[in-house]
């Protein structure tokens, strides 16, 4: 007892801590705090938004108790509901279209024999990721107007399908690459034709990645603002475009509530997609 009482300094600071492991490059002083700071920077603003959305006061920034009244107000707003329906129709159609196109594309790029065309095709499908959104938005607008295409929602579905393709493609390509071709070769050795090979071996193995790609495409379409704003016409307003209009008029509790809803939807979908698309080890 007396021993531990007389040397608390020695007991709490063993001599070994610095001497034995001087080369631990995995620990950089200050880095954990720095990273925590960055994570706070990334998430605190979102948390603040969610908290304000549940504020009973119309004066957004003065807390007057917990309330879901603004969510009720949003749900009862016919314009918001209409815009939400538009967004859903566009997102579902664009997801189906882009996922099918990306599935075929991923198979061709990873398993196919495209020779010289491969580089061109790979470059082309990544174009929507490289060209700035504002440029995609106005060139699409110019294109539709030059062709005299004014089909409301259909214009938006086409535009969304185009920029969703690379997002649906990426997880599928990664999965095909991770999978390796050995199982497909085994199937080929057993005289399976290409179609059978696809739906008995390749598709079941890459199904999680197809799901992940589809969800990514859905979220990207649902969240898109800039392209939708430029391409949409009076009857085809999407939810983000409508919310942007509300934001321009000022900070209101309704904006906080609808933003929180969109935030939660994206978060849930992306969490599922990232879980499905997580890297899996090769079967061998």
């Amino acid at each position, binding site marked *: 007892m007396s021993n531990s009482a007389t040397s608390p300094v020695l007991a709490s600071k063993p001599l070994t801590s610095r001497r034995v492991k001087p*080369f631990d*490059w*995995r*620990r*950089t002083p200050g*880095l*954990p705090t720095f*990273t925590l700071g960055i994570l706070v920077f990334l*998430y605190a*603003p*979102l948390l*603040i*938004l969610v908290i*304000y959305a549940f504020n009973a006061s119309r*004066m*957004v*920034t*003065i807390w007057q108790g917990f309330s879901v009244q603004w969510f009720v107000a949003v749900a009862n707003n016919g314009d918001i509901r209409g815009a939400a329906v538009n967004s859903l129709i566009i997102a579902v159609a664009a997801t189906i279209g882009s996922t*099918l*196109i990306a599935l*075929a*594309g991923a*198979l*061709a*790029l990873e398993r*196919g*024999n495209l020779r010289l065309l491969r580089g061109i*095709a790979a470059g*082309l*499908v990544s*174009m*929507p990721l*490289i*060209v*700035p*959104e*504002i*440029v995609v*938005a*106005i*060139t*699409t*607008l*110019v*294109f539709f107007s030059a062709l005299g295409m004014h089909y409301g929602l259909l214009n938006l579905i086409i535009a969304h399908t*185009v920029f969703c393709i690379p997002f649906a*493609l990426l997880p599928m390509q990664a999965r095909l690459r991770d999978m390796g071709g050995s199982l497909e070769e085994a199937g080929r050795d057993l005289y399976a034709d*290409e179609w059978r090979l696809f739906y008995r071996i390749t598709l079941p193995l890459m199904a999680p990645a197809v799901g992940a790609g589809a969800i*990514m495409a859905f979220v990207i379409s649902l*969240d898109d*603002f*800039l392209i939708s704003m*430029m391409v949409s016409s009076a009857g085809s307003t999407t939810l983000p475009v409508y919310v*942007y209009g509300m*934001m321009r008029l000022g900070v209101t509790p309704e*904006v906080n509530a609808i933003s929180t809803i969109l*935030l939660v939807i*994206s*978060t849930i979908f*992306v969490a599922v997609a990232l879980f499905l698309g997580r890297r899996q080890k090769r079967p061998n």
Partner: protein
Amino acid sequence: MRTRSSLLLILPAILIIGFFMMIPMCIALVYSFMTANAYGGVEAPATFDAYIQFLYQRDFDDTLVFVPDYIFIILRSIYLAVITTITCLILGLPVAWYIVCQNEQRRRLLLFLVTLPFWINTLIRTYCWILILRDEGLINNALRGIGVITQPLSLLYNDGSILLGLIYTFLPFMVLPIYSTLERIDPRLIEAAYDLYASRAAVFRRVVWPLAKPGALAGATLVFAPALGSFLAPDLLGGGKKLLIGSLIQMQFTSSRNWPFGAALSIAITAVILLVMMLRAWKAPAREIRA
């Protein structure tokens, strides 16, 4: 797979993106050489007016007067995009390094936390900063609450708030590519450097940074390109008064009704970005770009 069926499979992607993205770019290129129609749209004759407008304005008596306004907007956009890229690099590199140093389970969690914001609506992420920075916002209310200030500080609608919004939006774009290159560093290289009495700083400068460079370059491109053409941060956090190229282009197709000028600006910005990408492809060996 045979060549014919491979071609058949890639065809839909090529057709859709070719037809609805590459052809529109070509049309925009043509439009940039046309004359503006007052009702929106373009008409004959073909001119270079849209490009001349970058530098000059046509006076009433048809003489060209040098007006640097648009050049200033373009230079300011490039300047803000560069500052954003550098800041994201300074903030993102240590974070990527920290994630690499963690065990498998924590890596996954941290990567998820860094990736998630990328998928959350930029509109909403930008709007959050209005709640924090505006005159009746969180910071001003807090400072007034503890009696530091009586008049609200004007934190919103300046270059600082635009920059903050850009960094906030694009930081995840920087962390992920750097992480994926750092992940493949052989730990033995670092240990060897320590064994040869390299300091922490020397290990970073001589071992980690050279190996992280391709990822940093990829991240820099991924941040710079969308930051240069960004619309929401300057629009919502800059109050639309301080124009950047993104909002300037958007204006040409809405209130200003000058389609050729908007098309010319789009072509210019795309050219700048393709130039940056080509520089990167030229500087870095092909192997590093694919990774």
